[in-house]
């Protein structure tokens, strides 16, 4: 029987790594970190998990240890957040380029300065082009589910790309919610043992990570791009298999009460749950609104989004990060790109808010929808608007 217990998202993710029977965990305690590695260290110390816990001296080394461990065929896991993710930035590119299927939980947090340890999506957006599969979670159950699913997808021989599982700092990482934990037997059925086809082995010497001169680098990168996009099939198949075994259904793009809606709000992560309540209230008042929760951020689900978005008149995209000097939030840029080629396309309005731990209430999201519709109707000279931030936005023009 599965168990339903109270867990913060960090503990839920650690449980998933434990049930996945990870072999190597490498983590640094700060810059900042969460309870994920603390809980795993405790499990190893108590003999609940048979793994090598490598207490490294930095996030840069955390990811580097993961590369070495994955290259010998170990199931490898780490966790980080905010500036810690940026500190390993250089190393992040290497994992997908060398097809090393590391799984990493990224608890989303703001970047300095000013120093902030609280949640937003600046860290995730800054690494969007590194070649990792990236998914966002709305709640603690999803933190468990997506972490488990991440191993299944990353290690699939047709994928062999690393996966980042994102959940919001503090709003999820440090908040306790009920989480259903499955039986080990179910987990084992879902997640086969990891067999890395290119493991470093003295009996089959292999050169891993050779250098690419200009006559070969471009081809290598395009091949990586093609393989990465093809992984979407396994990503979706993995979600379907997850639903078959555990009964919870997830999709790259998740519509909420969108049937016939003229205005769609698009959010990512824990804010989607708050925004759903705002949508419910508006529906009750007879407004034609719906919500899109964007779960899969990379590879970006263009087709699925087009299918959901193109019938609406207005799309309001709410981003939890700054994209200085750009066209609006990072999410909004992608949505506009996805829709640009359509003959009939909705207006897309960009909102930025929820930065550095700033909460967004249900009322704040109601305002965002109202103001977004207004901007769509009468236009605005500003490239984006804000929600839940003091003062009027001015002089943000192209």
């Amino acid at each position: 029987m599965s168990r339903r217990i109270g867990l913060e998202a960090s503990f839920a993710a650690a449980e998933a790594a434990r049930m996945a029977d990870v072999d190597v965990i490498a983590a640094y305690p700060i810059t900042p970190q969460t309870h994920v590695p603390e809980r795993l260290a405790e499990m190893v110390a108590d003999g609940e998990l048979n793994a090598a816990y490598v207490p490294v001296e930095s996030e840069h080394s955390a990811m580097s240890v993961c590369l070495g461990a994955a290259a010998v065929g170990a199931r490898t896991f780490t966790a980080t957040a905010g500036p810690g993710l940026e500190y390993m930035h250089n190393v992040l590119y290497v994992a997908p380029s060398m097809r090393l299927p590391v799984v990493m939980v990224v608890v989303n947090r703001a970047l300095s300065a000013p120093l902030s340890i609280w949640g937003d999506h600046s860290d995730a957006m800054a690494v969007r082009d590194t070649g990792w599969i990236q998914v966002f979670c709305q709640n603690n159950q999803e933190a468990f589910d997506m972490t488990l699913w991440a191993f299944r997808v990353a290690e699939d021989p047709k994928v062999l790309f690393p996966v980042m599982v994102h959940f919001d700092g503090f709003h999820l990482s440090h908040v306790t919610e009920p989480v259903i934990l499955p039986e080990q037997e179910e987990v084992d059925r879902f997640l086969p043992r990891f067999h890395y086809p290119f493991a470093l082995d003295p009996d089959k010497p292999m050169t891993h990570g050779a250098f690419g001169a200009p006559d070969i680098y471009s081809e290598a990168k395009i091949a990586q791009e093609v393989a990465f996009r093809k992984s979407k099939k396994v990503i979706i198949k993995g979600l379907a298999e997850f639903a078959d075994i555990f009964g919870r259904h997830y999709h790259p793009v998740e519509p909420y009460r969108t049937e016939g809606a003229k205005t769609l709000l698009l959010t990512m992560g824990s804010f989607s749950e708050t925004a759903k309540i705002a949508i419910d209230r508006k529906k009750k008042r007879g407004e034609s609104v719906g919500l899109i929760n964007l779960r899969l951020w990379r590879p970006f689900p263009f087709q699925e989004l087009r299918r959901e978005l193109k019938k609406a008149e207005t799309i309001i995209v709410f981003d939890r990060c700054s994209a200085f000097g750009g066209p609006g939030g990072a999410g909004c840029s992608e949505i506009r790109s996805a829709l640009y080629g359509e003959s009939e396309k909705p207006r897309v309005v960009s909102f930025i808010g929820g930065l550095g731990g700033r909460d967004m209430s249900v009322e704040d999201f109601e305002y965002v929808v109202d103001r977004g519709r207004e901007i769509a109707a009468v236009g605005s000279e500003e490239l984006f608007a804000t929600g839940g931030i003091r003062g009027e936005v001015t002089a943000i023009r192209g």
Partner: protein
Amino acid sequence: MAEKVIKFGKNLVTTEEFLAEGHSFCTGCAEVLALRLACKALGRDVIIANATGCIEVCTSPLPVTSWRVPWIHTLFENVAATISGVEAGLGILMKKGRIPERDIKCVAVAGDGGTSDIGMQALSGAFERNHDFLYLCFDNEAYMNTGIQRSSATPYGASTTTAPAGKFSIGQITWKKDMVKIAVAHNIPYAATACPSYPFDLMNKVRKGAEIEGPAYVHIFSPCPTGWRYASDLAIEIGRLAVETGVFPLYEVETGRYKLTVDRPNLKPVEEYLKPQGRFRHLLDEEIAKIQERVNEDYARLKANVAALPA
């Protein structure tokens, strides 16, 4: 099949080559000679992690490779962490019975910049965590692969592209960072210096470092004709002079105990080592005297360590 060996006096050296010919090192490079000897000492049951640098670039241009042993390169600054992951991964997979128990030596290979500058933090971490690995620093005393820029291992008075000798500068104005001392300060079980001009000494130290349980560090003096500006047939001679003048003494520190493996009771003047090299050509007598004084002091300190804590 019995291993084929060549006998040099009492030394037996395998005829097997783990580093294939056809690589792109410069003519007269002592580093690749040292690497080839190190590979012979390590044998087949090894996994090598390589930092970015001359060795990485000259041995692994896609789609060809010089490596006949498993080899991985990830980045410049993280080789000690990469090999930590290899070692941790192998260890736990053997413990869990996923791969057969076997003695596979985990070896990191890096240059002086990748070791004493940008790779220092990762190396210190790997030493402190007590991984069972051997770290080989091939020291050619500057960033040679990228164009002879100075590193913290560049010796005082050498001219490099980022610390050039000029009207108002002698070139490098700092003294070479003592990596072995830093390694020893981590209380690791084995640290040593080596030079390919003394091939059996080098191979013995590499073998010893690989066999000792826990972290081991071997700092290998790697004369570089391109960066040091000497004739390409002089590599062995330059290495020998570095040892004979006391500029680069050959010693080992085993569990804190010091031993000079090549002892020179009477050191040759440093001038003999400096003169054939273009990078020192601008040095005036007073600077050479200053270097001589420093070498004398360092050598005396080393001798004092040997006397105080003998092997």
